[in-house]
């Protein structure tokens, strides 16, 4: 995260673009469309004006059936997907293992993040991580482990001629990780750096505080590593975690690239058939408690722009309202012609980065976020403008033209969900992991087609609640004046970093939240 921020700022310093990274919740399908301001008279006018446009022929899209990966389930429960792609002389694979950071003990927050590094960097019983680095880099190959909220993963990628060597090493890391202490120390030092720097960057503050407001401070997604929790993590914790989680029935393994599927299946069976089945992992139990409405303020005195985010609880993707929510999000915020972009950015010139929508997630309610950044002087005005756009979604439902455009945007770009064999594999693995039907994407298309304006209006009322949203503002108190108090009661969040164990708080008072 920090790497991206600092490297990004250095390398991308000279690279500026018309659209900011999307602040909308992760979406399955790209951005929205709508021109509400012009929508009553625009269609006719446009028809006249754009005679050129209407003469352009749009033939039918040629039929295309994406190549589905082959699914193999071993007797020990491991699920394997093979996706052959002969285009380039490469082979790669990702093994996703159930169980992640949301299951780690709260007093050891950071354990999975460290485990996600050291599983690979700590080497195996017979090779140190450094020896692996030399071996792999000389072949331009990779083996990497990663942490996640609900899973961890081990992946590889290599030229096809190196497959056997790299795969053997991959199996060694899978079965015999050594978690050497020097690499645990290195991973912890990286964590301490992230902790020390987490208040330097506005985005990092907004990201974590918004989750706390939406899910509640006790929810596992809200936890952040502290010096003390990282300090408590031991090698024994990692060995223990590995032993209880890295078992075949918890694993989905996807392999893609230039190989013969029969030979690959035989190779994988040889590698995994004799691996005994273990016990399934238990899912963490979570509660989701959104903060009360109001302004939540974080003081940062070295900025001249306020970052604003309104949040609430969204939905799970298995919710029957999912398709109507997707269409509503398309209309409301995210793309060049969405209501939020059009009003707040183009019409009012208040923000460069603006967007949002009702959040959706695979296994829990997503976080609905409505986010923007504006100069300190227009912070109050912007909060009101955002709220008024959300209210307008309730009072001013989309007309037929908006409905057509937003559904077209989703359906016409549908092909980009499976225009690449690796994308198809990744989707399929996701459905398998979260227990969704294999034809979920087809159902999605059919679901979107059926959405009516009444559906959109209904879900807008059901999920938006513009007056109930906790509103996070990170900004400069010296420049804000009384703009925030004019909006209602303000609660100031204390984001001071608890000092490492045994060291006094140099900064004076650091009361709890």
């Amino acid at each position: 995260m920090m790497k991206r921020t600092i490297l990004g700022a250095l390398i991308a310093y000279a690279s500026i673009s018309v659209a900011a990274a999307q602040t909308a919740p992760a979406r399955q399908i790209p951005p929205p469309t709508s021109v509400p301001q012009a929508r009553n008279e625009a269609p006719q006018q446009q028809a006249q004006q754009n005679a050129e446009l209407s003469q352009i022929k749009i033939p039918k899209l040629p039929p295309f059936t994406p190549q589905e990966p082959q699914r193999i389930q071993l007797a020990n429960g491991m699920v394997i997907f093979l996706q052959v792609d002969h285009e380039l002389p490469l082979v790669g694979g990702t093994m996703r293992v159930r169980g992640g950071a949301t299951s780690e003990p709260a007093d050891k927050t950071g354990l999975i993040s460290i485990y996600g590094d050291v599983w690979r960097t700590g080497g195996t019983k017979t090779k140190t991580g450094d020896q692996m680095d030399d071996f792999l880099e000389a072949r331009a190959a990779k083996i990497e482990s990663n942490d996640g909220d609900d899973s961890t993963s081990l992946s590889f990628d290599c030229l096809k001629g190196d497959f056997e060597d790299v795969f053997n090493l991959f199996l060694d890391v899978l079965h015999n990780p050594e978690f050497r202490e020097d690499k645990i120390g290195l991973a912890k030092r990286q964590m301490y750096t992230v902790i020390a720097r987490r208040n330097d960057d506005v985005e990092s503050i907004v990201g974590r505080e918004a989750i706390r407001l939406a899910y509640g401070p006790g929810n596992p997604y809200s936890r952040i590593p502290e010096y003390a929790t990282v300090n408590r993590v031991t090698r024994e914790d990692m060995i223990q975690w590995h032993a209880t989680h890295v078992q075949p029935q918890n694993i989905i393994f996807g392999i893609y690239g230039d190989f013969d599927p029969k030979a690959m299946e035989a190779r994988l069976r040889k590698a995994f058939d004799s691996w005994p089945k273990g016990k399934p992992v238990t899912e963490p139990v979570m509660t989701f408690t959104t903060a009360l409405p109001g302004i939540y303020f974080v003081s940062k005195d070295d900025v001249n722009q306020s970052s604003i985010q309104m949040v609430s609880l969204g939905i799970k993707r298995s919710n029957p309202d999912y398709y109507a929510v997707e269409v509503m999000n398309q209309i409301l915020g995210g793309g060049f012609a969405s209501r939020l972009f059009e009003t707040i950015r183009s019409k009012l010139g208040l923000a460069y980065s603006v967007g949002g929508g009702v959040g959706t997630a695979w296994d829990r309610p997503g976080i609905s976020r409505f986010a923007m950044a504006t100069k300190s002087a227009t912070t109050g005005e912007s909060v009101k403008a955002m709220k008024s756009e959300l209210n307008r979604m309730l009072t001013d439902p989309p007309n037929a033209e908006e409905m057509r455009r937003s559904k077209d945007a989703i359906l016409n770009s549908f092909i980009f969900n499976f225009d690449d064999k690796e994308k198809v594999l990744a989707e399929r693995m996701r459905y398998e992991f979260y227990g969704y039907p294999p034809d979920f994407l087809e159902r999605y298309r059919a679901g979107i087609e059926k959405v009516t304006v009444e559906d959109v209006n209904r879900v807008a009322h059901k999920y938006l609640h513009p007056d109930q949203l906790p509103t996070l503002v990170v900004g400069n108190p010296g420049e804000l004046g009384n703009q925030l108090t004019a909006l209602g009661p303000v609660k100031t969040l204390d984001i001071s970093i608890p000092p490492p164990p045994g060291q006094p708080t140099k900064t004076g008072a650091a009361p709890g939240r």
Partner: protein
Amino acid sequence: MRKFGKFLSLAILFLVVPLFAQDLASFEKRTEVRKLPNGLTVILCQRHEAPVFSFYTLVDAGSVQDPKGETGLAHMFEHMAFKGTPTIGTKDYAAEKIVLAKIEEVYAEYIRERDRMVNRDPKKIAELEKQWKDLVNEADTYVVRNQFGEIVEENGGVGMNAGTEEDDTVYFYSMPVNRLELWAYLESSRFADPVMREFYKERDVVYEERRMRIDSDPTGRLVEQFVGTAFQASPYRNPGIGWPADLRTFSATDAINFFHKYYTPSNMYIAVVGDLYPDQFWPVVEKYFGQIPSHPKPDERITQEPPQNSERSVALQETAQPLYVEGYHRPSYLSPDDAVYDAITDLMSNGRTSRLYRSLVRDKRIAAIAAGFSGLPGQKYPHLFAFYAVPLPGHTNNEMRDAIHAEIERLKKEDVSDEELQMFKTRARASIIRGLGNNPGLATSLAIMQARYGDWRELFRQLDRIDKVTKADIRRVANETFVESNRTVGIIETAQIPRGAQAGPGQQPPAQ
């Protein structure tokens, strides 16, 4: 293990070289370049994986071309290229056009009065400002907002964006293949006759972009100051986003003048990759893009940076944690040593085997990240090779400096090993292969290679240059480049601990 490694990587070399020959041959068969009569260069690369295509348009003009007193203008025009044409984005262009022209008259007068050095008349300024803003609101009534982007999106376009760099400006998205003609219409008309509607509101948007990327981000603030310190004559000294005063001054007239000067077809390169066939593609491209009027390629010369003769530095006092950057002037990407700099970047920075990682992060345990790279802030003209390091809590910028310098000295005094040199060459090959498997990435590479080297085949031929790099080259280039008098240093120092906000740098992490 190392000996074995060397043996194996030679084997890879033999394995990979023929594959590459085959790949260039396969690309020769499915890639075609045409220069249209108006000077526009178009590349088609067939890739029949799925019924979609991606494009990448490179305009060979970037922030370096910003006129004096108008920094940020190239980027501003990039934003305006999404505002439509006489037929897209308007309810009544005939009427709109008249108001847009009036805005420019009044705005020019307003700026003249506002920036008068003596005898300013506040009343007159206020009147003109009001007139200007009223006209902006009047023009607004004719706008069909964001219609250009809306047409792209409702037709299934994805990944639509654009970027302005110091060296060039780029535009890109992907579309279903049945929208080829629509794409050609949209992309040719936006560069045949763009309309500067909503200019002054968009200028506010761009100012917010500056606040986000530079003003409110400590690293952004440091890099702006650092680059401005390293360059004194070259236009690379100016931030692409623009200096604040210029962002409050330049006009729609300035932007359209910039467009007419630099967005000429002979200065533009379009690469299209996807499920397209030549006999269907070229007639459409010629019909639409052939209509863009032609004029001569603009002058590319800039003020050259004179040699630096003593070390420079800039230190920011911030509430943020410390950060260390240093940069050395190096020649442009056309230098015969370009691949040698690539080798140095790779050896010093690429992955866990890199020298800076092993020294500062693994062994000395003083930094979380340490790396060096070329291309700050651009590459087309002489630029910087920069090193940076992120200190661990409790460690200082001076430690970063000393440890980076120790690694630089090693590079100057000792030959790199055979394994290291071979690793660089193997990784360079693999990284090219990995970039060939997706439409947007390929379109980007082909357009850049065609614009920068005059031939997309450089995507493969760059390997010849990479193969020729020797140990002696690396030592020579390191000795020529990494000298004190050629150095600029930029640091963030943590000035103070703010009221109850942050842990200071003096705090030590728990003992292990």
